[in-house]
């Protein structure tokens, strides 16, 4: 069983990395829309997929994954916004967990927006 002693060990390990993470003003942000509309459309597995993919690639110090509310485009949920400091904010729509590895790889790692998944592509 998971014990609090184990948590203590995690704390000690995390403390060493803590400053790095806290003081990273250049951290990118992944915002997953998690209001009623987003949740109903399947935002939870998308958020989980981002968390897992970012952990797998060891990007946890430079990317934070968090939730946001409804931005008024409920018909395009799950909606994911990606903010990288110094770059234009990108809004991905109708995101499925299968699309996440590509968004992480192309956009967050290589700074190439996956245009076909963005809101601009769908509205044409």
């Amino acid at each position: 069983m998971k014990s609090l002693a184990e948590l203590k060990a995690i704390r000690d390990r995390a403390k060493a990395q803590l400053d790095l993470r806290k003081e990273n003003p250049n951290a990118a942000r992944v915002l997953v829309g998690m209001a009623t509309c987003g949740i109903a459309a399947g935002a939870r597995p998308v958020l989980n997929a981002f968390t897992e993919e970012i952990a797998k690639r060891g990007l946890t110090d430079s990317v934070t994954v968090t939730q946001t509310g409804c931005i008024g485009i409920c018909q395009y949920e799950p909606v994911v916004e990606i903010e990288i400091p110094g770059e234009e904010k990108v809004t991905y729509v109708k995101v499925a967990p299968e699309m996440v590895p590509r968004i992480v790889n192309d956009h967050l790692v290589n700074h190439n927006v996956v245009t076909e998944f963005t809101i601009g592509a769908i509205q044409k």
Partner: protein
Amino acid sequence: MRELSLNVMDVAQNSVRAEASLVRITVEESEKDDRMKIEIADNGCGMTEEQVQQVIDPFFTTRTTRKVGLGVPLFKLSAEQTGGSFNIQSEKNVGTTTTAIYVPSHMDMTPLGDIDSTVKILIQCNPQIDFVFTHSTDLGSFTLDTRELREVLGDVSLDTPDVLEWIGQYLEENTQNIYGGASL
């Protein structure tokens, strides 16, 4: 909503927006009594009697970006369609408690779904808030109290990836236990 755990995530976010510092999520399942209770209690800003009536109305929302608010109405419907009941107790500046009672054997019962994932994401996305999650069945119960974790963690945040992984595994192991699964 396909799972009740998604309703919980949705309604718990009302607590977050009400600036609660402590949110209690309780799931009590009893096969024996054919009853399930889901309760979300917070110490947020609370509502007046009039506001409580308003949130049950799907065409009311405090938001300005859209005209409908479906979170509470959907949650209420999920309980009432099984022959259960739904209640909101709220007091201004004290907090709000939302309780849904289900009759699980009813044909229109929505499955509880992945409640652990809901709890984990709530902690991940609101590391400044304390959550107390209690889940019980006829076989037993367990509690995850982030205040206890915080005591051990000191200034290490709850949303640290390794901590979240620990939380995920803790929930998984304990859930397995109260569902009568083999212990590892």
